[in-house]
Protein backbone atom coordinates (compact mmCIF):
# COMPACT_ATOMS: atom_id res chain seq x y z
CA UNK A 1 0.00 0.00 0.00
CA UNK A 2 1.40 3.41 -0.98
CA UNK A 3 1.99 6.36 1.27
CA UNK A 4 -1.04 8.60 1.78
CA UNK A 5 0.04 11.88 0.20
CA UNK A 6 -1.09 15.09 1.86
CA UNK A 7 -1.52 18.61 0.64
CA UNK A 8 -2.21 22.03 2.13
CA UNK A 9 -4.72 24.08 0.17
CA UNK A 10 -5.11 27.84 0.23
CA UNK A 11 -8.84 28.15 0.88
CA UNK A 12 -10.38 31.56 0.38
CA UNK A 13 -13.96 30.36 0.56
CA UNK A 14 -14.55 31.04 -3.13
CA UNK A 15 -15.37 28.62 -5.90
CA UNK A 16 -11.89 28.13 -7.38
CA UNK A 17 -10.15 26.99 -4.23
CA UNK A 18 -13.14 24.79 -3.45
CA UNK A 19 -12.85 23.06 -6.82
CA UNK A 20 -9.07 22.78 -6.54
CA UNK A 21 -9.42 20.93 -3.24
CA UNK A 22 -12.10 18.67 -4.61
CA UNK A 23 -10.02 17.90 -7.71
CA UNK A 24 -7.18 16.67 -5.50
CA UNK A 25 -9.53 14.70 -3.26
CA UNK A 26 -10.74 12.97 -6.43
CA UNK A 27 -7.14 11.79 -6.86
CA UNK A 28 -7.00 10.36 -3.35
CA UNK A 29 -4.99 13.17 -1.79
CA UNK A 30 -5.59 14.01 1.87
CA UNK A 31 -6.17 17.76 1.92
CA UNK A 32 -6.19 20.25 4.77
CA UNK A 33 -6.97 23.90 4.21
CA UNK A 34 -5.45 27.13 5.41
CA UNK A 35 -7.17 30.48 5.34
CA UNK A 36 -5.27 33.67 6.07
CA UNK A 37 -6.70 36.64 7.95
CA UNK A 38 -5.05 39.83 6.68
CA UNK A 39 -7.33 42.40 8.32
CA UNK A 40 -8.63 43.48 4.91
CA UNK A 41 -11.13 40.65 4.50
CA UNK A 42 -14.47 41.96 3.30
CA UNK A 43 -16.94 39.50 4.70
CA UNK A 44 -17.37 38.75 8.34
CA UNK A 45 -16.45 42.14 9.66
CA UNK A 46 -18.83 44.25 7.64
CA UNK A 47 -21.62 41.78 8.24
CA UNK A 48 -20.89 41.79 11.93
CA UNK A 49 -20.77 45.55 12.19
CA UNK A 50 -23.69 46.71 10.08
CA UNK A 51 -27.09 45.99 11.54
CA UNK A 52 -28.74 45.97 8.11
CA UNK A 53 -26.41 43.12 7.11
CA UNK A 54 -27.24 41.06 10.17
CA UNK A 55 -30.35 39.64 8.57
CA UNK A 56 -28.22 38.08 5.84
CA UNK A 57 -27.02 34.54 6.18
CA UNK A 58 -23.83 34.70 8.15
CA UNK A 59 -21.11 32.20 7.60
CA UNK A 60 -17.40 32.10 7.18
CA UNK A 61 -17.15 30.85 3.61
CA UNK A 62 -13.76 29.21 4.11
CA UNK A 63 -15.11 27.20 7.05
CA UNK A 64 -18.22 26.41 5.09
CA UNK A 65 -16.13 25.08 2.17
CA UNK A 66 -14.04 23.02 4.58
CA UNK A 67 -17.13 21.50 6.10
CA UNK A 68 -18.67 20.80 2.73
CA UNK A 69 -15.51 19.04 1.51
CA UNK A 70 -14.76 17.30 4.80
CA UNK A 71 -11.35 18.87 5.36
CA UNK A 72 -9.73 20.53 8.34
CA UNK A 73 -9.23 24.26 8.03
CA UNK A 74 -6.62 26.26 9.88
CA UNK A 75 -7.32 29.99 10.07
CA UNK A 76 -4.12 31.94 10.53
CA UNK A 77 -3.84 35.53 11.69
CA UNK A 78 -1.16 37.08 9.48
CA UNK A 79 -2.35 40.68 9.89
CA UNK A 80 0.86 41.88 11.53
CA UNK A 81 3.29 40.33 9.02
CA UNK A 82 0.99 41.30 6.19
CA UNK A 83 1.68 44.99 6.76
CA UNK A 84 4.96 44.69 4.89
CA UNK A 85 3.13 43.25 1.88
CA UNK A 86 0.73 46.20 1.83
CA UNK A 87 3.30 48.87 2.56
CA UNK A 88 6.19 47.64 0.44
CA UNK A 89 4.93 45.50 -2.42
CA UNK A 90 7.86 44.44 -4.55
CA UNK A 91 5.65 44.02 -7.59
CA UNK A 92 3.50 47.07 -6.99
CA UNK A 93 -0.22 47.58 -6.68
CA UNK A 94 -3.11 46.66 -8.93
CA UNK A 95 -5.83 49.13 -9.87
CA UNK A 96 -6.08 50.32 -6.25
CA UNK A 97 -4.07 49.48 -3.12
CA UNK A 98 -4.17 45.77 -3.89
CA UNK A 99 -0.73 44.16 -3.93
CA UNK A 100 -2.16 40.97 -5.44
CA UNK A 101 1.04 39.39 -6.74
CA UNK A 102 3.01 40.05 -3.56
CA UNK A 103 0.00 38.83 -1.59
CA UNK A 104 -0.11 35.53 -3.45
CA UNK A 105 3.65 35.05 -3.08
CA UNK A 106 3.35 35.79 0.63
CA UNK A 107 0.46 33.39 1.18
CA UNK A 108 2.00 30.54 -0.78
CA UNK A 109 5.22 31.23 1.13
CA UNK A 110 3.35 30.92 4.43
CA UNK A 111 1.79 27.66 3.28
CA UNK A 112 5.23 26.48 2.21
CA UNK A 113 6.60 27.25 5.67
CA UNK A 114 3.76 25.18 7.17
CA UNK A 115 4.58 22.39 4.77
CA UNK A 116 8.27 22.44 5.68
CA UNK A 117 7.52 22.63 9.40
CA UNK A 118 5.18 19.65 9.19
CA UNK A 119 7.73 17.70 7.18
CA UNK A 120 10.42 18.38 9.76
CA UNK A 121 8.16 17.34 12.61
CA UNK A 122 6.89 14.06 11.23
CA UNK A 123 9.43 13.22 8.57
CA UNK A 124 7.53 11.63 5.72
CA UNK A 125 4.15 11.97 7.42
CA UNK A 126 3.89 15.72 6.85
CA UNK A 127 2.41 17.63 3.94
CA UNK A 128 3.82 16.93 0.52
CA UNK A 129 2.61 19.83 -1.58
CA UNK A 130 0.49 22.98 -1.80
CA UNK A 131 -2.73 23.49 -3.74
CA UNK A 132 -4.15 26.77 -4.98
CA UNK A 133 -7.23 27.56 -7.02
CA UNK A 134 -5.34 29.82 -9.39
CA UNK A 135 -6.35 29.94 -13.03
CA UNK A 136 -4.16 31.41 -15.76
CA UNK A 137 -5.63 34.69 -16.97
CA UNK A 138 -8.19 34.91 -14.21
CA UNK A 139 -6.70 37.97 -12.52
CA UNK A 140 -4.79 40.63 -14.41
CA UNK A 141 -2.19 41.24 -11.71
CA UNK A 142 -1.47 37.90 -10.12
CA UNK A 143 -2.91 35.06 -12.16
CA UNK A 144 -1.05 35.12 -15.46
CA UNK A 145 1.07 32.52 -17.18
CA UNK A 146 4.24 34.49 -16.39
CA UNK A 147 3.37 35.01 -12.72
CA UNK A 148 2.75 31.33 -11.96
CA UNK A 149 6.45 30.35 -12.01
CA UNK A 150 7.32 33.61 -10.26
CA UNK A 151 4.97 32.79 -7.36
CA UNK A 152 6.37 29.26 -7.18
CA UNK A 153 9.95 30.55 -7.08
CA UNK A 154 9.57 33.57 -4.82
CA UNK A 155 7.42 31.74 -2.28
CA UNK A 156 9.97 28.94 -2.01
CA UNK A 157 7.34 26.36 -2.95
CA UNK A 158 9.11 25.71 -6.26
CA UNK A 159 7.65 22.61 -7.90
CA UNK A 160 5.61 21.61 -4.86
CA UNK A 161 2.77 23.94 -5.82
CA UNK A 162 -0.09 22.42 -7.82
CA UNK A 163 -2.84 24.39 -9.56
CA UNK A 164 -5.36 21.68 -10.36
CA UNK A 165 -7.69 23.96 -12.34
CA UNK A 166 -5.04 24.92 -14.90
CA UNK A 167 -2.34 22.33 -14.23
CA UNK A 168 -2.55 20.92 -17.75
CA UNK A 169 -1.36 24.28 -19.08
CA UNK A 170 1.65 24.44 -16.75
CA UNK A 171 4.93 22.53 -16.54
CA UNK A 172 4.80 19.26 -14.63
CA UNK A 173 5.23 19.58 -10.87
CA UNK A 174 6.95 17.26 -8.42
CA UNK A 175 3.71 15.52 -7.38
CA UNK A 176 3.07 14.69 -11.05
CA UNK A 177 6.61 13.48 -11.71
CA UNK A 178 6.51 11.33 -8.58
CA UNK A 179 3.16 9.85 -9.61
CA UNK A 180 1.32 11.14 -6.53
CA UNK A 181 -1.23 12.79 -8.83
CA UNK A 182 -2.13 12.32 -12.48
CA UNK A 183 -1.74 15.23 -14.84
CA UNK A 184 -4.52 14.05 -17.12
CA UNK A 185 -7.01 14.31 -14.27
CA UNK A 186 -6.29 18.00 -13.81
CA UNK A 187 -7.90 20.81 -15.84
CA UNK A 188 -6.89 23.37 -18.45
CA UNK A 189 -9.08 26.30 -17.47
CA UNK A 190 -7.89 29.74 -18.51
CA UNK A 191 -9.16 33.27 -18.72
CA UNK A 192 -11.93 35.08 -16.95
CA UNK A 193 -14.74 32.87 -18.23
CA UNK A 194 -16.30 31.20 -15.24
CA UNK A 195 -18.44 28.70 -17.13
CA UNK A 196 -16.01 25.74 -16.85
CA UNK A 197 -15.76 26.20 -13.08
CA UNK A 198 -19.52 26.49 -12.73
CA UNK A 199 -20.01 23.36 -14.84
CA UNK A 200 -17.47 21.45 -12.75
CA UNK A 201 -19.18 22.56 -9.54
CA UNK A 202 -22.46 21.32 -10.96
CA UNK A 203 -20.92 17.98 -11.88
CA UNK A 204 -19.72 17.51 -8.31
CA UNK A 205 -23.02 18.66 -6.81
CA UNK A 206 -21.49 21.78 -5.33
CA UNK A 207 -24.41 24.10 -5.84
CA UNK A 208 -23.84 26.63 -3.08
CA UNK A 209 -20.68 28.67 -3.08
CA UNK A 210 -19.54 32.26 -2.55
CA UNK A 211 -20.07 34.41 -5.62
CA UNK A 212 -17.27 33.76 -8.12
CA UNK A 213 -14.72 36.52 -8.55
CA UNK A 214 -16.42 38.59 -5.88
CA UNK A 215 -13.86 40.84 -4.26
CA UNK A 216 -12.90 39.38 -0.91
CA UNK A 217 -10.27 41.99 -0.08
CA UNK A 218 -10.98 45.62 0.74
CA UNK A 219 -7.74 46.64 -0.94
CA UNK A 220 -9.35 46.02 -4.33
CA UNK A 221 -12.07 48.54 -3.44
CA UNK A 222 -11.57 52.05 -4.78
CA UNK A 223 -13.31 53.83 -1.93
CA UNK A 224 -11.47 51.87 0.75
CA UNK A 225 -8.11 52.41 -0.96
CA UNK A 226 -8.78 56.14 -1.13
CA UNK A 227 -9.45 56.22 2.62
CA UNK A 228 -6.27 54.29 3.32
CA UNK A 229 -4.26 56.69 1.14
CA UNK A 230 -5.84 59.63 2.95
CA UNK A 231 -4.92 58.11 6.32
CA UNK A 232 -1.27 57.81 5.31
CA UNK A 233 -1.17 61.28 3.84
CA UNK A 234 -2.73 62.86 6.93
CA UNK A 235 -0.35 61.09 9.28
CA UNK A 236 2.68 61.75 7.15
CA UNK A 237 3.78 58.13 7.17
CA UNK A 238 2.65 54.88 5.60
CA UNK A 239 1.81 52.74 8.61
CA UNK A 240 -1.35 51.32 10.12
CA UNK A 241 -2.68 49.34 13.04
CA UNK A 242 -5.49 46.79 12.87
CA UNK A 243 -7.91 49.28 14.47
CA UNK A 244 -7.13 51.82 11.73
CA UNK A 245 -8.05 49.47 8.93
CA UNK A 246 -11.15 48.25 10.78
CA UNK A 247 -12.43 51.81 11.12
CA UNK A 248 -11.91 52.46 7.42
CA UNK A 249 -14.65 49.88 6.87
CA UNK A 250 -17.29 51.81 8.80
CA UNK A 251 -19.00 55.20 8.68
CA UNK A 252 -18.71 58.26 6.51
CA UNK A 253 -15.19 59.66 6.50
CA UNK A 254 -15.11 63.44 6.21
CA UNK A 255 -11.97 65.57 6.31
CA UNK A 256 -12.70 69.29 6.58
CA UNK A 257 -9.01 70.06 7.34
CA UNK A 258 -5.70 68.21 7.02
CA UNK A 259 -5.27 67.81 10.81
CA UNK A 260 -8.47 65.92 11.55
CA UNK A 261 -11.29 63.87 10.06
CA UNK A 262 -14.73 62.81 11.21
CA UNK A 263 -15.99 59.25 11.15
CA UNK A 264 -19.78 59.52 11.24
CA UNK A 265 -21.70 56.36 11.98
CA UNK A 266 -24.29 55.44 9.34
CA UNK A 267 -26.53 53.18 11.38
CA UNK A 268 -27.10 51.50 14.72
CA UNK A 269 -24.71 48.61 14.15
CA UNK A 270 -21.87 50.96 13.27
CA UNK A 271 -22.78 53.14 16.24
CA UNK A 272 -22.41 50.15 18.58
CA UNK A 273 -19.12 49.15 16.97
CA UNK A 274 -17.71 52.67 17.17
CA UNK A 275 -18.68 52.94 20.84
CA UNK A 276 -15.83 50.52 21.47
CA UNK A 277 -13.40 53.17 20.22
CA UNK A 278 -14.75 56.11 22.22
CA UNK A 279 -11.73 56.23 24.53
CA UNK A 280 -9.26 56.32 21.64
CA UNK A 281 -10.80 59.28 19.79
CA UNK A 282 -12.52 62.59 20.38
CA UNK A 283 -16.26 61.92 20.30
CA UNK A 284 -19.27 64.02 19.28
CA UNK A 285 -22.84 63.12 20.27
CA UNK A 286 -25.97 65.11 19.45
CA UNK A 287 -27.98 65.81 22.61
CA UNK A 288 -30.92 67.94 21.50
CA UNK A 289 -31.78 65.76 18.50
CA UNK A 290 -31.36 62.16 17.43
CA UNK A 291 -28.23 61.41 15.47
CA UNK A 292 -25.15 59.29 15.04
CA UNK A 293 -22.00 58.97 17.08
CA UNK A 294 -19.02 60.69 15.46
CA UNK A 295 -15.37 59.93 16.16
CA UNK A 296 -12.78 62.58 15.38
CA UNK A 297 -9.35 61.29 14.39
CA UNK A 298 -6.23 63.43 14.31
CA UNK A 299 -5.16 66.51 16.22
CA UNK A 300 -8.09 68.93 16.17
CA UNK A 301 -7.97 72.21 18.10
CA UNK A 302 -10.88 73.24 20.34
CA UNK A 303 -12.22 75.33 17.46
CA UNK A 304 -11.87 72.37 15.11
CA UNK A 305 -14.00 70.23 17.45
CA UNK A 306 -16.71 72.89 17.47
CA UNK A 307 -16.63 73.01 13.69
CA UNK A 308 -16.64 69.20 13.53
CA UNK A 309 -19.81 69.19 15.63
CA UNK A 310 -21.41 71.60 13.15
CA UNK A 311 -20.46 69.21 10.33
CA UNK A 312 -21.70 66.15 12.25
CA UNK A 313 -24.99 67.97 12.78
CA UNK A 314 -25.66 67.63 9.04
CA UNK A 315 -26.15 63.90 9.61
CA UNK A 316 -28.53 64.29 12.56
CA UNK A 317 -32.24 64.92 12.86
CA UNK A 318 -31.41 68.52 13.79
CA UNK A 319 -29.77 69.37 10.49
CA UNK A 320 -32.46 71.97 9.71
CA UNK A 321 -32.64 73.34 13.25
CA UNK A 322 -31.36 76.85 14.07
CA UNK A 323 -29.21 75.46 16.85
CA UNK A 324 -28.38 72.08 18.35
CA UNK A 325 -26.62 70.91 21.47
CA UNK A 326 -23.77 68.45 21.23
CA UNK A 327 -21.68 66.64 23.79
CA UNK A 328 -18.02 66.87 22.91
CA UNK A 329 -15.60 64.56 24.71
CA UNK A 330 -11.97 65.27 23.84
CA UNK A 331 -9.72 62.23 23.89
CA UNK A 332 -8.51 61.77 27.46
CA UNK A 333 -10.47 64.87 28.54
CA UNK A 334 -13.75 65.75 30.18
CA UNK A 335 -16.99 65.86 28.21
CA UNK A 336 -18.80 69.17 27.85
CA UNK A 337 -22.00 70.31 26.14
CA UNK A 338 -22.06 73.08 23.56
CA UNK A 339 -24.65 74.80 21.44
CA UNK A 340 -23.81 74.87 17.75
CA UNK A 341 -25.36 75.95 14.46
CA UNK A 342 -25.58 73.06 11.97
CA UNK A 343 -23.50 73.80 8.92
CA UNK A 344 -25.54 74.96 5.93
CA UNK A 345 -25.57 72.64 2.90
CA UNK A 346 -23.88 75.29 0.74
CA UNK A 347 -21.03 75.53 3.24
CA UNK A 348 -20.41 71.77 3.23
CA UNK A 349 -17.70 71.14 0.66
CA UNK A 350 -18.36 67.79 -1.10
CA UNK A 351 -14.59 67.37 -1.41
CA UNK A 352 -14.48 66.77 2.33
CA UNK A 353 -15.92 63.30 1.72
CA UNK A 354 -13.02 60.87 1.52
Amino acid at each position, binding site marked *: MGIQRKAIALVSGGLDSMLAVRAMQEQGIHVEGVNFFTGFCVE*GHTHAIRKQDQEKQKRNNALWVAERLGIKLHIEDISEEYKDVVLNPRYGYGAHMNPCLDCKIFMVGKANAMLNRARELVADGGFDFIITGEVIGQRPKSQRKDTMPLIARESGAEDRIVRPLCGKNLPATLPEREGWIQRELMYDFSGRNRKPQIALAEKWGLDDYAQPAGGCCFLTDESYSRKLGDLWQARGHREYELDDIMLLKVGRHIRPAPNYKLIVSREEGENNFMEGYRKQFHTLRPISHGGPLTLVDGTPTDDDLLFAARVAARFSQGKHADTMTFQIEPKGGTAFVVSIVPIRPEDFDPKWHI
Partner: protein
Amino acid sequence: MSETHQYDARGLLCPLPVIRVQSLVKKLPEGDIVEVVGTDPGILHDIPAWCRVHGHTVLSTEQRGKDYYVTLKVGEKS
Protein backbone atom coordinates in the same frame (compact mmCIF):
# COMPACT_ATOMS: atom_id res chain seq x y z
CA MET B 1 -10.00 15.26 35.17
CA SER B 2 -11.19 17.75 32.58
CA GLU B 3 -10.88 21.47 33.19
CA THR B 4 -13.10 24.35 32.13
CA HIS B 5 -11.52 27.39 30.51
CA GLN B 6 -13.08 30.78 29.78
CA TYR B 7 -12.22 32.89 26.78
CA ASP B 8 -13.40 36.48 26.47
CA ALA B 9 -13.64 37.43 22.80
CA ARG B 10 -15.78 40.53 23.37
CA GLY B 11 -14.88 43.35 21.02
CA LEU B 12 -13.32 40.98 18.49
CA LEU B 13 -14.90 40.51 15.09
CA CYS B 14 -14.95 37.18 13.26
CA PRO B 15 -12.77 35.44 12.32
CA LEU B 16 -10.57 36.67 15.20
CA PRO B 17 -12.59 34.87 17.91
CA VAL B 18 -12.20 31.62 15.94
CA ILE B 19 -8.47 32.19 15.55
CA ARG B 20 -8.02 32.88 19.27
CA VAL B 21 -10.11 29.84 20.26
CA GLN B 22 -8.14 27.72 17.79
CA SER B 23 -4.88 28.76 19.50
CA LEU B 24 -6.30 28.01 22.95
CA VAL B 25 -7.74 24.63 22.01
CA LYS B 26 -4.44 23.58 20.42
CA LYS B 27 -2.89 23.59 23.91
CA LEU B 28 -5.69 21.72 25.67
CA PRO B 29 -6.19 17.99 26.18
CA GLU B 30 -9.19 16.08 24.93
CA GLY B 31 -12.22 16.48 27.17
CA ASP B 32 -11.51 19.98 28.44
CA ILE B 33 -14.33 22.50 28.17
CA VAL B 34 -14.00 26.01 26.70
CA GLU B 35 -16.62 28.69 27.35
CA VAL B 36 -16.36 31.55 24.86
CA VAL B 37 -18.16 34.87 25.20
CA GLY B 38 -18.19 37.41 22.38
CA THR B 39 -20.06 40.41 21.04
CA ASP B 40 -19.98 39.40 17.37
CA PRO B 41 -23.03 37.24 16.65
CA GLY B 42 -20.92 35.52 14.00
CA ILE B 43 -19.36 33.36 16.73
CA LEU B 44 -22.62 31.44 16.98
CA HIS B 45 -21.99 30.17 13.43
CA ASP B 46 -18.23 30.26 12.99
CA ILE B 47 -17.07 28.56 16.18
CA PRO B 48 -19.50 25.62 15.76
CA ALA B 49 -18.42 25.30 12.09
CA TRP B 50 -14.77 25.29 13.15
CA CYS B 51 -15.56 22.68 15.83
CA ARG B 52 -17.30 20.44 13.31
CA VAL B 53 -14.35 20.40 10.90
CA HIS B 54 -11.87 19.72 13.71
CA GLY B 55 -13.85 17.12 15.64
CA HIS B 56 -14.69 19.16 18.73
CA THR B 57 -18.18 19.11 20.25
CA VAL B 58 -20.36 22.17 20.69
CA LEU B 59 -22.22 21.81 23.97
CA SER B 60 -24.30 24.98 23.74
CA THR B 61 -24.77 28.31 21.96
CA GLU B 62 -26.85 31.15 23.33
CA GLN B 63 -27.40 34.88 23.41
CA ARG B 64 -27.64 36.71 26.73
CA GLY B 65 -28.31 40.41 26.32
CA LYS B 66 -25.69 41.81 23.96
CA ASP B 67 -23.29 38.91 24.49
CA TYR B 68 -23.09 35.58 22.68
CA TYR B 69 -21.87 32.36 24.29
CA VAL B 70 -20.48 29.16 22.82
CA THR B 71 -19.40 26.23 24.97
CA LEU B 72 -17.34 23.47 23.42
CA LYS B 73 -15.65 20.26 24.45
CA VAL B 74 -12.19 19.57 23.06
CA GLY B 75 -12.15 16.48 20.86
CA GLU B 76 -9.44 14.01 20.01
CA LYS B 77 -6.34 15.61 18.46
CA SER B 78 -5.01 14.12 15.27
